[in-house]
């Protein structure tokens, strides 16, 4: 336990300063200065995180702490807590954040809102590091709400477009629904435990009433589900792809959407103590993993495929947290941050290359034109599918193995099915973009321009006619490729177990949840899972290559359930019918009936009443002084008589 480790405050503080400076100077400084300032601040935050990590490892046990201030009652305040879990997240947030800042400095080069973009990006890093560093639910909520605002600002970055503005509002509303759950959970926690600090609440989690714990766990889960785009509050994530691609990579793939995983892992004693907590988390996770994978198969926009893939992969992490495999969930968070950020940045290069085209059915043959994008995207795809020895293989398999070890064969089967679908949709995406015939070049330029103008894709805002890849884009992509390839080596079964050992300082080893009697022996579980996963992935990839590979028929083939998949099983339409329409109707009724008739009627009625009274009463004022004197006298006489006679 080391108190007053003030360097912790620099991790959110530096990006906040960067946000303020770039926001103030956005119209005065040149683009290199703006991007340089923002990137430097994030880079320094990364270095401070590494310094804090070294200090934390030196401590052996205990955590770095820094209390900033408190309001009145003990347990309500803002403090920073640097332990294994928060430092693990911070490494990714600031590290991947730095790479994406660098990438964006080239990607956004032609955008008139350059300075605003970097100010908002820095502000996001501030909010996200506050979220994971907070030492209690209150500080976490502050970070939670601020990342929501940053997400809103960046999804709607191109705010002249109706689609982007609508998408940002949608994301904000859904996240607000989650925050309501979080705030209610905090109220119950305060009531039950008398504190909001993790250090006070979590160790005594088991002492509360089971019903109360159920309520806390389910309400916390609502918050996690909304932020992490899990079923049924996932609807904002695909629309969030209206934001610039670096934003999709950083916020809507690598970091912010994993805040729900952070919450589920950070508050795991509450979930474990609640009778329905773990089951609910696991069910939400597996349902989202499967749903995201199924829908991703039927999407044709490159970024929406990746968005549903993110939902599916975050579902795996939540699922891992739901069976007690916390370190596996956080390990998958890290590897996913690497390869999904890589895939999004690659998608950005692809979109620029096709002049704003995002429909993968109109792409093809990019492998010969952009070998760099081909190879990096291939590594990312294979890492996501889970091909050994890339990172996704180790992290995803660790979660799936844990499902079997803790005695959840049904969850295991569903997770394996989702893994097969993952292999299929990623193969489809990769083949359609990079292999096969290139679309006609001349027609493509014109068609893409028209399509982009019609559908308001990214080409409207800026234009990058250069055919190569800018070095500032290439370097982050290369680094992420290397990380995606080798990060899995942190946890090779039987050889290394870095995540488990490091995170185990806070979480204990998984297996905290007692394995059911039917659980398979660990060795068997590992062998069986890896064999099945590899087999399923291989079959799915072969099928994908056969259907969508170089020898595919010209257009995308029709597939079963095509319409349902393309519309994400009509969740948007359901919400529109259940929430949006009734609310709009109510608003119209209030605006057109209640306000003019009831509210205005009351106000105008009072005014008319006063006018009528005044017309009657003015006759009392005749202007004759002597009449006033008589009235005065008569009044006095009445009062005197009253007192004399009664």
């Amino acid at each position, binding site marked *: 336990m080391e108190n007053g480790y003030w360097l912790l405050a620099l991790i959110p503080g530096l990006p906040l300063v960067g946000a303020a400076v770039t926001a103030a100077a956005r119209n005065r400084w040149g683009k290199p200065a703006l991007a340089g300032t923002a990137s430097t601040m994030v880079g320094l935050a990364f270095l401070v995180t590494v310094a804090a990590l070294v200090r934390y490892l030196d401590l052996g046990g205990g955590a770095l702490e820094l209390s900033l201030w408190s309001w009145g009652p003990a347990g309500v305040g803002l403090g920073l807590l640097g332990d294994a879990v928060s430092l693990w997240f911070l490494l990714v947030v600031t590290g991947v954040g730095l790479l994406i800042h660098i990438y964006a400095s080239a990607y956004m080069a032609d955008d008139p809102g350059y300075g605003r973009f970097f100010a908002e990006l820095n502000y996001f890093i501030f909010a996200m590091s506050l979220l994971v560093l907070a030492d209690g639910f209150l500080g976490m909520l502050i970070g939670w709400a601020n990342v929501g605002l940053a997400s809103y600002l960046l999804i709607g970055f191109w705010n002249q477009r109706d689609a982007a503005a609508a998408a940002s509002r949608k994301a904000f509303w859904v996240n607000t629904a989650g925050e309501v759950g979080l705030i209610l959970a905090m109220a119950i926690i305060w009531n039950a435990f008398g504190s909001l600090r993790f250090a006070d609440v979590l160790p005594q989690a088991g002492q509360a009433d089971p019903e109360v714990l159920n309520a806390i766990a389910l309400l916390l889960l609502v918050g996690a589900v909304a932020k992490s785009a899990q079923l049924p509050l996932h609807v904002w994530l695909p629309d969030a792809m209206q934001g610039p691609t670096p934003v999709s990579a950083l916020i809507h793939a690598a970091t912010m959407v994993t805040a729900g995983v952070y919450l589920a892992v950070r508050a795991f004693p509450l979930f474990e103590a609640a009778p329905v907590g773990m089951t609910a988390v696991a069910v939400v996770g597996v349902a989202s993993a499967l749903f995201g994978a199924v829908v991703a198969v039927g999407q044709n926009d490159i970024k929406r495929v990746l968005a549903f893939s993110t939902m599916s992969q975050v579902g795996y992490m939540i699922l891992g947290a739901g069976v007690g495999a916390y370190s596996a969930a956080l390990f998958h968070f890290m590897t996913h941050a690497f390869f999904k950020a890589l895939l999004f940045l690659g998608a950005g290069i692809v979109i620029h290359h096709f002049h704003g085209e995002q429909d993968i059915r109109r792409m093809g043959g990019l492998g010969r034109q952009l070998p760099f994008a081909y190879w990096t995207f291939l590594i990312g795809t294979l890492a996501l599918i889970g091909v050994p020895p890339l990172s996704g293989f180790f992290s995803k398999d660790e979660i799936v193995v844990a499902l079997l070890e803790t005695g959840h064969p049904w969850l295991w089967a569903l997770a394996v099915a989702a893994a097969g679908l993952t292999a299929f949709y990623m193969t489809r995406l990769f083949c359609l973009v990079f292999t096969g015939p290139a679309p006609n070049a001349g027609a493509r330029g014109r068609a893409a321009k028209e399509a982009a103008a019609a559908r308001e894709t990214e080409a409207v805002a800026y234009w990058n006619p250069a055919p190569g890849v800018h070095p500032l884009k290439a370097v982050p992509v290369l680094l992420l490729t290397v990380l995606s390839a080798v990060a899995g080596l942190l946890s090779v079964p039987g050889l290394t177990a870095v995540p488990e050992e490091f995170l185990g300082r806070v979480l204990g080893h998984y297996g905290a949840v007692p394995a059911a009697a039917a659980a398979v022996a660990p060795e068997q579980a590992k062998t069986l899972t890896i064999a099945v996963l590899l087999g399923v992935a291989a079959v799915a990839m072969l099928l994908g290559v056969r259907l969508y590979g170089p020898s595919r028929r010209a257009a995308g083939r029709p597939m079963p359930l095509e319409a349902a998949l393309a519309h994400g099983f009509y969740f948007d339409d359901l919400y529109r019918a259940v929430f949006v329409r009734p609310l709009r109707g109510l608003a119209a009724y209030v605006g057109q009936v209640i306000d003019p008739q009831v509210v205005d009627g009351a106000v105008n009625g009072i005014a008319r009443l006063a006018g009528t009274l005044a017309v009657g*009463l*003015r*006759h*009392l*004022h*005749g*202007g*004759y*002084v*002597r009449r006033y*004197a*008589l009235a005065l*006298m008569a009044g006095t006489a009445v009062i005197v008589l009253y007192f004399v006679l009664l």
Partner: protein
Amino acid sequence: MPGMAVEGYVVLSALLFVIGLIGVLVRRSPLVMLMSIEVMWGAASLLFLTFARMWAAMDGHVFTFMIVAVGAAEAAVGLALIVLIFRSRHKADVDDVRALRG
């Protein structure tokens, strides 16, 4: 001075008050109305002094002083108004001054 005959003073005071009241109500000259009000002031003061003597207390004297002071102020203001009315109309009849008619 306990035991003194107060009836005479009270009756005189009542007479003075009624005279003043009738003067205010029936006369239309503001000057006369002002003088009638002074008579009513006097009636009230007389009653105060009577009962002050009767109970041998100072309260009534104090009130009388107040009445004299306020009455002087009132007369000053009232006379000033009357002078202004005379200047603008060349005659003074309170029934003509009805600018406040509603």
